[in-house]
Structures are given as C-alpha cells and as structure tokens.
C-alpha cells in the first residue's frame, strides 16, 4: 500500500518533483520574541549537495530542524517532493532523513534493534525494514557492531549509526547537521564517500564548520548569517588557476613558454598564481620545468575558490553589513 502511495505521488506531480526535491519559502522563526530566522528561501534539486555554513548561532540548526519537520516555522512554507510539510507532514516526512547535531540514538539498544525501530517508524513493513537495515549497515560500516549496545560504541560508530538512521529509508532529502564532527580522519573520509555516493539519487543538505569540506563535497554553498542567507551560490572547482611556489634564487621565468600556462602573476617571493588552460597539462609541464632547472617545487595546487574569504567578509564585518 505504501509503495502504491509513493508511486501514485510520483506520477501525479510528474517530472517537476523529480527535479525539485525541497523548496522552502520565506521561513521565519522567533525564539522568545527574538527573530532568529528572517525569511529563508532554499531550493534543492536531485543530485545537489548543499553546504550550509555560518558562524555558531546563525540559525543553521534551527533551519535544519524546520526543514526536517522537528520545528514549525512561524511563517513560510516547505514542500518536500511536492508534499507540504505543514499540511501533509506524514507524507512529506517519509522523504526526509535527518541527522541532528546530537545523533538521536537509543543507548540501551543494539545497533540492529535501533535501526530496525527507525525503519519501522518510517512506515516500512517488517521484511522491508530488515532488508533496509542490513543495506544501511553495509553502507555505513556498521556490520561488525550490529549486535553491540549503542551506548558502548565509540563516538565514530555512534555518529555512523546516526547517519545510517537518516539514510535507512532512502529519503529523497537527506539533512545532516555536522555529520563529520568528532570523527577521526579515516572516518571523516568514509563519511564523505558515503555522502558523495548519496548525491546521485538524493538531495543532501549538510552543515559544517570545515570550509574545505564544503568545498570538496558540495555543489552549492549557502552561508547563513544572523538568520539570513547571506550567500547562496554554486561553487565550481576552479580548473583554470593554480598556485605554485618554488625554492630558487632565479628570477621568475616566462610563464607563457610552459605548456598550458597562459599567464602568471607573483603573489609573494617565488609564489605565483598561474592562469592555465588545463590544470593537469600545466601541472605536468611545470613539474618537468622545475626538474630541468633543478628548482625545488614547494607547492602546487588548485587555486581554491575564495570561499573562506567570502565567509570572513560576510560574517566577520557584520557590523558593517547588518547594522
């Protein structure tokens, strides 16, 4: 019956739903008379990973709570897969997977029991739920700890159990509040891989304080500041600029003679920003170039898009921006 409902919905709203999975309009929220969200607008399409950035207290968690139906906004509307979250919450919430800042775990239950409970809570039949649990355990690397009590697990496993819970029912919209906080570097990598794999079928919103994480994972970044969206843009990998630094006494070469490099400008002593046609071609040519001349290559990397600068500009000088 459930499946029938889902299919029916998909047919009704046709292709529009397939693209636009989440659409939030003009969300506001007050806390004790203080306005914490000022008209947030967000849209999320299938395949998008939206990085949600902002200083602490900017309203990130509040927004995520509202998007996942934990909190209701004072005004504004949210539609998820074509279902209005306030008018048809039961239908809309089937398509949401949410990992709050503190993973909502049952410490007295085993991982298997917990995930089974979560699957059933999302309306799955028993057999379906069992299958979903083993699948998500596999995805999140929880197979080995399935029969252990969650309370006895390390923080990394707890976080993974929290993520597994959010992905269990294959929701269209996955909302993750700081999914990599408290994990060790290996676990962070594993979680990032999981998120990357997700974005083919789902739309993901993730909040983070790690700007490089947003840069590598997200196709779009929204910076929230004082309850407003101060920045909401696609971030593309800049393949046409690189930063290099050499250890040498010789003066800077004629950059245009190197394959793939169009121009160069000096950033500081022996540190240059190069405009290139293709990153890989230019990188190979530069490596050869330095070897031929016996220079030491200190640094060679893509010129990261100026996300950090944007972040600092928007959120540090707030007195100028939002006085």
């Amino acid at each position, binding site marked *: 019956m459930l499946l029938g409902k889902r299919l029916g919905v998909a047919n009704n709203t046709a292709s529009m739903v397939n693209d636009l999975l989440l659409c939030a309009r003009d969300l506001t929220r007050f806390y004790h008379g203080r306005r914490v969200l000022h008209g947030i607008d967000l849209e999320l399409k299938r395949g998008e990973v939206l990085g949600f950035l902002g200083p602490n207290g900017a309203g990130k968690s509040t927004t995520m709570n509202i998007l996942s*139906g934990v*909190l209701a906004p004072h005004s504004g509307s949210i539609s998820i897969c074509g279902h209005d979250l306030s008018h048809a919450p039961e239908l809309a919430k089937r398509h949401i997977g949410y990992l709050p800042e503190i993973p909502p775990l049952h410490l007295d239950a085993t991982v298997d029991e917990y995930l089974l409970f979560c699957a059933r*809570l999302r309306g799955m039949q028993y057999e379906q739920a069992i299958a979903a649990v083993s699948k998500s355990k596999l995805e999140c690397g929880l197979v080995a700890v399935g029969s252990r009590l969650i309370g006895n697990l390390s923080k990394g496993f707890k976080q993974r159990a929290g993520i597994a819970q959010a992905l269990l029912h294959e929701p269209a919209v996955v909302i993750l509040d700081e999914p990599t906080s408290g994990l060790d570097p290996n676990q962070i990598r594993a979680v990032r891989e999981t998120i990357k794999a997700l974005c083919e079928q789902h739309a993901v919103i993730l909040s983070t304080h790690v700007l490089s994480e947003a840069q590598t994972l997200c196709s779009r970044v929204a910076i929230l500041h004082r309850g407003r969206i101060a920045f909401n843009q696609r971030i593309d990998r800049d393949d046409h600029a690189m930063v290099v630094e050499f250890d040498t006494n010789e003066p800077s070469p004629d950059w245009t003679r190197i394959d793939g490099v169009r121009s160069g400008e000096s950033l500081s002593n022996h540190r240059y920003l190069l405009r290139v046609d293709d990153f890989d071609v230019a990188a190979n040519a530069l490596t050869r170039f330095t070897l031929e001349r016996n220079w030491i290559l200190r640094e060679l990397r893509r010129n990261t898009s100026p996300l950090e600068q944007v972040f600092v500009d928007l959120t540090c000088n707030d007195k100028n921006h939002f006085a």
Partner: protein
Amino acid sequence: MIKIIATREATSLFRSPLAWTLLAMAQFVFAFQFLAQIETYMHFAEKLRAMPESPGVTEVVVTPSLGVAAMLMLFFIPVTTMSSLSGERRNGTLMLLYSSPVTSWQIVAGKYAGILTVLAVLWIIVALMPLTLMWGAALDVGVYLSGLLALFLLMAAYAAVGLMFSAMFTQPAVAAIMSFGVLSGLWLIDWATPLGQDASFFAYLSSLNHFQRIARGLLNTSDLAYFGIIIALSIYLTAWRLDGDRKPL
C-alpha cells in the same frame, strides 16, 4: 505505528534495572502487608464469625490489601513514567520521533501503551496474590474482580498523569515529584471537606473515594467516568505539549 513505539517503550523500561527493582519491591511490600492482613483476620476470625452477616475474607483481607496496593502506586508509577518523554527530550531522541512520519497523538498513545504494558505486569503480580486464599477460604469473586478493576483504572490514570508531567519537564526527577505531588493531592483532597458534610466537590475530586467505591464492588458510571476523564485529559495535554514543541508559540 503506535505498536512500534509502545514496544520500544516497554522494552526500554524492561532493559533498565528500574522496572525490575520496582516490580521486586512492589511484590515484597505488597506480600508483606498482605500477610499482615491475613494475620489480623486470623486473629479476629472467631469474633467475626459470631457476627450476623459477618464480612468475609474478601472484604477483610483482599479489599484493604488492594487499597494498600493503590497507595503504593502513588510512589511506583511516577517513577516508572518519569523518564518516558523527559528522557527522550534530554537525549535528543525526541527529534527522531519528530522527524519521522508520526503524529504527536501516535507518539503519546504509543508511549502510554508501552507504560501500561509494564504496569500490567505489576497489576498481575498484585492480582495473583489474593488467589492463594482460595486454598483455605471462599473468595467473593465479584468483589475481587471489581477490586482489580478499580486498581487497574487507578494505575491507568496515574500513568497518564505521570506521562503528562514527563512531557512537561526535561528532568525526570522533577516530573516524578510533580506527578507524585499531584496524585497524592488528588488522593487526599477529600480531607478538605469539613467533617459531616457529604458529596462535596472535593469529595468528587478525590481518587480515593472513587477507588474505594469500585473496589467494594459498587460499579457506577460516575466513578468510571472520573478515571476516564483523568486519562483523557492527561493524554490530551501530553499531546498538546508535544505539539507545542514544534509549533511556534
């Protein structure tokens, strides 16, 4: 959905040492006073038998015992219910329920059903003990059964009140103290009635009065309605409180 939440609630209660300790202590205290009642009955048995229309063992032993059990519930039930919702709120697991496709009503009904399941075990323990009298005495089955009904209604009402306070406070201990205070207040409120005056408003509020009437075998709608109203009102307020978490105030 209600069943899933109820199962989780009941297993979670049985996983903690709390439910087991409660069951053990309730069993111990109830058995102790039950034996004491029998002692007293044995002591006065001769005199009682000499009386015309003498009260039987059910009236002298079983009904007062159930009354004591009802009083014990004042302590036990607030402790059973105290962390039902406040614990979830503290651990952040309430978020899991809120972000899942379940309504506040389903959450409350599930929690309540889970608690009632655990309390049913306690109720059965209490119910079984008077049956031992059947070896040596004639038990008035009607009075025994209505005594059990009275006890169950009382427990169900207490559980609903306990759940309500559990929804209102983040700290389980505060929830327990509040429900204990309110429940014992309801139990004793009758004392506010001036002596000799009957059927006052306070007398109707008193859970003791309603319990005793049903326990003595007098079933009437007014008493049944009393417990029904407490349960319905508490459940409604609990769901209202959970809705209040999400809805803008």
